[in-house]
């Protein structure tokens, strides 16, 4: 027994070492100290597999896609479109045509707000939650102000879970057309019960959009098992490049939606009087897409799959448990968000030391955490704080880094009180 445990610990440490070796940036120094990067929820670092895929594309196999009748363009088109298949498999989509490439989650949600939103009538309701990132709030506010749909908000409970009773009440008048809710909060770490939300939404005649920007990094997404209608993810948090995100939606919904941006590649025929649209997904991809970044995203997904969500999930769960314990021991530290199902994003305050001071003093020691409202101002109001500090974990995060964070926080506190 004992031997087995030691062996499996060594395994974990060994594979963590191998993973870390794939991320060149982790050997950088900051203020003369080893970089301890605990801001992966804002944007993850990139493995060499992603860096190389992008560089190799530019070095050996690049041309504009879809219209080229020559070798380089055909190969680049294939590489680009192959990522659509990869993303479809990654999300459990029924068909590759359901995958629309966007710049990021923000653009994906704006696409839905503009295009699906244009089909809504005044009096219909878009229902969000109190813990949304601005990306899943501001587009709906803008839609409201443009068209007169109503924006309704479902509160969170004191421990940071979605208030499911309130959700039911909010759905009860049958006017809700779309429920748009995060699958994992970037502030509280809360993971919402997406399937239950989808069932409630559908029973009330509403469609449902999940903001999977955070969740898809840590757990396997299966849009069909969730019975989702829309799902969005963003490449740079998935160890991929910036400039690439994904909107998934059911084929029949995408078919019914008008295009968002106009230009090349999204048309079927064009005359001055009238243009007709290409079929999905191209209808929603106007202009030269982020070709190199899409290929980089493909490399990132392949990298994630090579580790596997079993290992990723186990690592994250172990880290989160460890971190909640280690941080819980720091005097005056208060973790914000204690929902039963939660992931590796931990917000906290420490007595009345301002989160900005915490972040700067951690940075002096090489530790990168985020401090502020985390693009979730309304949630901050609900929580009665103006800002929090936040540590968040990636596949390369180690328990030792978390211990160092906790020890440094204890010292910082000693500094202030």
């Amino acid at each position, binding site marked *: 027994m004992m031997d087995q445990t030691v062996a499996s610990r060594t395994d974990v440490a060994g594979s963590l070492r191998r993973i870390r070796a794939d991320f060149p940036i982790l050997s950088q120094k900051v203020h*003369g100290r080893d970089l301890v990067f605990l801001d992966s929820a804002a944007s993850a670092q990139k493995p060499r597999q992603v860096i190389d895929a992008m560089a190799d594309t530019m070095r050996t196999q690049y041309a504009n896609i879809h219209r080229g009748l020559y070798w380089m363009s055909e190969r680049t088109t294939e590489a680009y479109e192959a990522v659509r298949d990869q993303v479809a498999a990654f999300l459990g989509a029924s068909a590759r045509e359901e995958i629309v490439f966007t710049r990021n989650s923000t653009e994906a949600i704006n696409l839905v707000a503009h295009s699906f939103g244009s089909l809504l009538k005044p009096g219909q309701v878009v229902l969000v939650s109190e813990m949304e990132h601005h990306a899943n709030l501001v587009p709906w506010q803008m839609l409201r102000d443009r068209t007169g749909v109503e924006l309704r908000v479902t509160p969170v409970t004191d421990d940071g879970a979605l208030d499911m009773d309130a959700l039911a009440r909010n759905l009860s008048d049958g006017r809700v057309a779309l429920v748009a809710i995060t699958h994992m909060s970037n502030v509280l770490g809360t993971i919402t019960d997406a399937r239950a939300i989808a069932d409630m939404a559908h029973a009330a005649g509403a469609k449902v959009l999940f903001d999977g920007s955070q969740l898809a990094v840590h757990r396997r997404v299966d849009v069909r098992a969730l019975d989702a209608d829309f799902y969005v993810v963003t490449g740079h948090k998935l160890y991929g490049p910036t400039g690439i995100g994904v909107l998934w939606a059911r084929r029949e919904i995408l078919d019914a939606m008008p295009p968002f941006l106009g230009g090349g590649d999204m048309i079927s025929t064009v005359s001055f009087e009238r243009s007709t649209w290409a079929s999905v997904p191209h209808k929603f991809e106007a202009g030269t897409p982020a070709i190199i970044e899409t290929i980089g995203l493909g490399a990132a997904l392949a990298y994630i799959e090579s580790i596997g969500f079993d290992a990723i999930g186990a690592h994250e769960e172990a880290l989160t448990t460890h971190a909640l314990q280690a941080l819980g021991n720091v005097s005056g530290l208060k973790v914000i968000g204690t929902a039963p199902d939660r992931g590796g994003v931990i917000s906290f305050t420490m007595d009345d030391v301002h989160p900005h001071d915490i972040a700067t003093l951690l940075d002096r020691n090489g530790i990168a955490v985020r401090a*502020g409202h985390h693009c979730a101002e309304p949630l901050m109001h609900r929580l009665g704080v103006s*800002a929090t500090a936040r540590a968040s974990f990636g596949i390369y995060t180690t328990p030792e880094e978390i211990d160092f964070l906790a020890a440094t926080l204890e010292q910082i506190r000693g500094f202030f009180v």
Partner: protein
Amino acid sequence: MTQDDLYRTVVLERARTPRYSGPLAGAQMQGEGSNPLCGDRVRLQANVDVQGRVAALRHETRGCAICAASADLMAERVVGQEPARVSQLHADLVTAVETGIAPEGLGELSAFAPLHRHRSRIRCAMLPWSALIEMLNDDKDR
């Protein structure tokens, strides 16, 4: 932990126990500065004398230690100064935080020079100063 030259005693002390905070009874002027991105807010109340010198200055600051200490050290420093000298101090402080080298005569305000290695925090130290300059300019315009 790395010995810290930014959070020096003077900064921590002034943040913890400010000497010039609170309202100013019968103040002639009010000023306010805020940074919506981080929630920092500074409220100023002041009197100026006939020569335009700051005769009294009080601040109410909600924010981080850098911002709070900066407001308090500012309040201490500008009282009794000519407007030109206030502008000079402001400019010198900008130089200090941008370059890390404090111009002569900056005194305790040179505590903020290490901010040049924490550029995202420069605005915390400068917020009280922007509020002050704006308040004084508004007064001139009237």
